[in-house]
């Protein structure tokens, strides 16, 4: 026997098991809307904890055996450093290093402070690593980040529009990406993680990743709606089938994508590499959001946009008419069958042929109309 997992994949693909993503879009849009609004509110109320790369400042790291009370002891000593108004913040980095953050220092203050921190930690001055950031640096990074974001958005919309020859796909994809971005930033605001250049890297990578997922879904939709006018299916139905067909693939790509990222996050947290941990977290949140948004936002939104087109409205009316006609015929046959059944005929076998006849009937009608 096949494992349950496989059969789910199979049933999803063939349409035996199907969740109506498109029909329930209102519900998912509300969920996403709430998430987005909550993220924006969190952002406004709590704000982001910006790292010194954005605010300016100096970050010293010195190797030091951390024991209970070490941090407090260092904190007390740091308050008495020569340079005034240092506003030192002291943290431990795992069990092997101490981290002291101060305001922006000039070269001279930097040297003095570095030497004194080395003394506190009991190491040579050259063992004290530091990262000094001027006050304007953060503005610069943020500005470049925003430029990258805008350029990327425009180019990606163009790329998608050209590749799929459908600008509505571009819009749906960008809305989904915007959702992922806002939610990721919202998580940062909620958790209070420090935003560093690594976070920026992560967030920008999410753009690519989220789009990657969306592109896969759209690719399948495009395949399914090929020659849609000739069929009895609406755009929404075909889009929904596509979402159900790619869901296994989507879960797989996301799982496989997330595995290395989790490794990054775990190794970063465990071994106290703030850079890797930051990047890992941003990617983790963004990738999950990305997988969700391509299935629950991008595809339904696209279907909604396309269904509003006059051609699609007409197509739906046609299907409706065909269905009504078929319904009438079916009712007629039902009556005949009932008559037969009372006469003792084999009624249950009816179902399959009836379906077939409905299709061929409508096709004949279509041909008739065309002439």
């Amino acid at each position, binding site marked *: *026997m*096949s*494992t349950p997992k*496989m*059969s*789910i994949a*199979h*049933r999803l*693909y*063939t349409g*035996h*098991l199907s969740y109506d993503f498109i029909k329930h879009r209102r519900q998912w849009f509300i969920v996403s809307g709430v998430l987005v609004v909550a993220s924006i509110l969190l952002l406004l109320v709590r704000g982001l904890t910006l790292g010194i790369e954005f605010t300016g400042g100096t970050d010293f*790291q010195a*190797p030091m055996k951390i024991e209970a009370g070490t941090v407090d002891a260092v904190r007390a000593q740091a308050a008495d450093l020569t340079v005034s108004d240092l506003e030192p913040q002291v943290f431990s980095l795992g069990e092997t290093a101490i981290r002291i953050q101060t305001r922006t220092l000039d*070269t001279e203050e*930097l*040297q003095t402070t570095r030497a004194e921190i080395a003394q506190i930690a009991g190491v040579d001055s050259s*063992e*004290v*690593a*530091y*990262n*000094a*950031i*001027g006050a304007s*640096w953060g503005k*610069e990074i943020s500005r*470049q980040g925003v430029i*990258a974001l805008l350029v*990327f958005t425009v180019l*990606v919309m163009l*790329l998608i529009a050209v590749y799929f020859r459908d600008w509505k796909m571009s819009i749906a994809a960008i809305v989904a990406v915007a959702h992922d971005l806002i939610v990721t930033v919202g998580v940062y605001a909620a958790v209070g993680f420090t935003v560093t*250049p690594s976070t920026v*890297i992560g967030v*920008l*990578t999410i*753009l*690519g990743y989220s*789009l*990657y997922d969306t*592109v*896969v879904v759209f*690719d399948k939709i495009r395949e399914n709606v090929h020659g849609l006018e000739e069929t009895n299916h609406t755009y929404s139905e075909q889009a929904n089938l596509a979402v159900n067909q790619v869901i*296994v*693939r989507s879960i*797989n*790509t996301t*799982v*496989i994508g*997330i*595995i290395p*990222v*989790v*490794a*990054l996050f*775990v190794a970063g947290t465990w*071994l106290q*590499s703030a*850079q*890797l941990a930051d990047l890992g977290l941003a990617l983790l949140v963004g990738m999950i959001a990305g997988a969700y948004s391509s299935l629950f936002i991008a595809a339904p939104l696209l279907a909604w946009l396309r269904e509003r087109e006059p051609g699609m409205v007409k197509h739906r009316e046609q299907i409706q008419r065909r269905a009504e006609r078929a319904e009438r015929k079916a009712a007629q046959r039902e009556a005949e069958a009932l008559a037969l059944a009372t006469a003792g005929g084999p009624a249950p076998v009816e179902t399959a042929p009836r379906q077939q006849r409905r299709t061929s009937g409508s096709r004949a009608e279509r041909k008739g109309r065309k002439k």
Partner: protein
Amino acid sequence: MATSAKRGRPGVVLTVFLLIIVGLYLIMGLTKTWAPKLGLDLQGGQTITLTATSENVTPESLELARNIIQQRVDGLGVGEATVAVQGDRRIVVSAPNVTSDDLVELVGATAQLSFRPVLQSGAGTGPSDDADAVPGLPTPAPSPEPSASADGPSVDNEQLSIDEVLAYTATEEDLENFANFVCGDTVVDDPSRAIVACDDEGTYKYLLGPTAVLGTELDTAAYGIPTGDLSYVVTLSLKSTGAEQFKQLTGALLDKTSPENLFAIVLDGIVESAVEPQVQITNGEAQISGSFTADSAASLANVLKYGSLPVSFEPSQVETVSATLGGEQLRVGIIAGLIGIAAVALYSFIYYRGMGIVVVASLVVAASATYAMMVLLGSAVGFSLSLAGIAGAIVGIAVTADSFVIYFERIRDEIRDGRSLRSSLVSGWEKARGTIIISDAVSLLSAVILFIVAIGSVKGFAFTLGLTTMIDLAVVFFFTKPLVQLLGRTKFFGEGHKWSGLDAEHMGVSRDSLLGRRLRRRTPVTHDVTATQTTQEA
């Protein structure tokens, strides 16, 4: 079509591709470089990002500033320090193995330009054979605390009066210093003392008197060919105090004999030019002629004009990583990468069973190609691997593995649609190809934009992400796909063995359909036992 030709010979494609990778390793072997260049955050060292304080900086002055800073940094003798222009107003100085604070002071400091009378001259040691020893080591600008420069005599910033300078005669000690001096030794440019300095190629060495005119007295400098003349000259004009000092200096030198009739233009402890005045310059407008080429005239004029940096900079980021911390970060990065690859491989084996072999083989090939490219790019274009770069490569693992998933799931979809396994391997690829290309294109696009726009560590991340994405494309096309086609010919995979990941049961089709023994159905299996059961469950 090219594809149909390839379809026939997957073995050839595979072999050629593997040979190319072997070729990369051969090149590595020939150049004897086996490890990528490490960024300073991984090996320890100092990175200083200088940002021009003014918004508008011409590329020329930025390049000039870069040159001056490069000279100074080289002068510190710290080895392979690189100075690079980044963007339109930034200069990045990276010095491996440096963790002291000297460098920060040095790069941003104003250069010391001075005019000194020549007391003695002689042949230098010539360009040094030792690559590390760069001729004419300047020192950091004198700091307010002289004791900071432990080596060398203490610096007294006082300039002597012009009369005192002209009256200065070489002492025993000066002559001894001169005799013992080897070009490449440290020069402390103390205005009040005699110094020994070499020209920038180390061909000549000079014993120089105390500073007669300070560089700060220079107003402007230019170069060109005067009307009616044939060769280039460098003209300079001095401010009033300097003009007076210069007048006395040139007047006094006229009476002297060689080599004492020369004055030297010294920048950061290097004799840029030794000049013999022809007349006494009274108005502070001097003209230096000689065998100048356009380039050498321009460079001297620039040196004079920009004795200090042409643009003022502020260090916007200084990052110092000790070798211990750097090594630790490298270790964490590698551990994360290995865990990532191992976990992806494990997942692939569980989910795709036998096909997991393809995933692992492709990942191994992609990883070795990436490694080779990193090493070779390190020696070719100076690419260095940073922590952010490692992160980019780890994300690259995800991108690479994604392509396989798209491909494999496509094959399975085709089988579910009732195709035979063998034809699914082909048609699945044709359908997956477009998706893989477009999704990699999006990934590549973000990498390129990040690389162009971003600054600092983000750049390194973007570079490796772009690199791994391109390698992914190559691996999927020239390794994974031919490998799958080849495996499709084996009994194990081609007939859908239970552990191959392609068996009939998992696909929800009959064995006959899998092997293409039945006519293809229009609709997927509706009567299948599994399907009916599960529908009821649902």
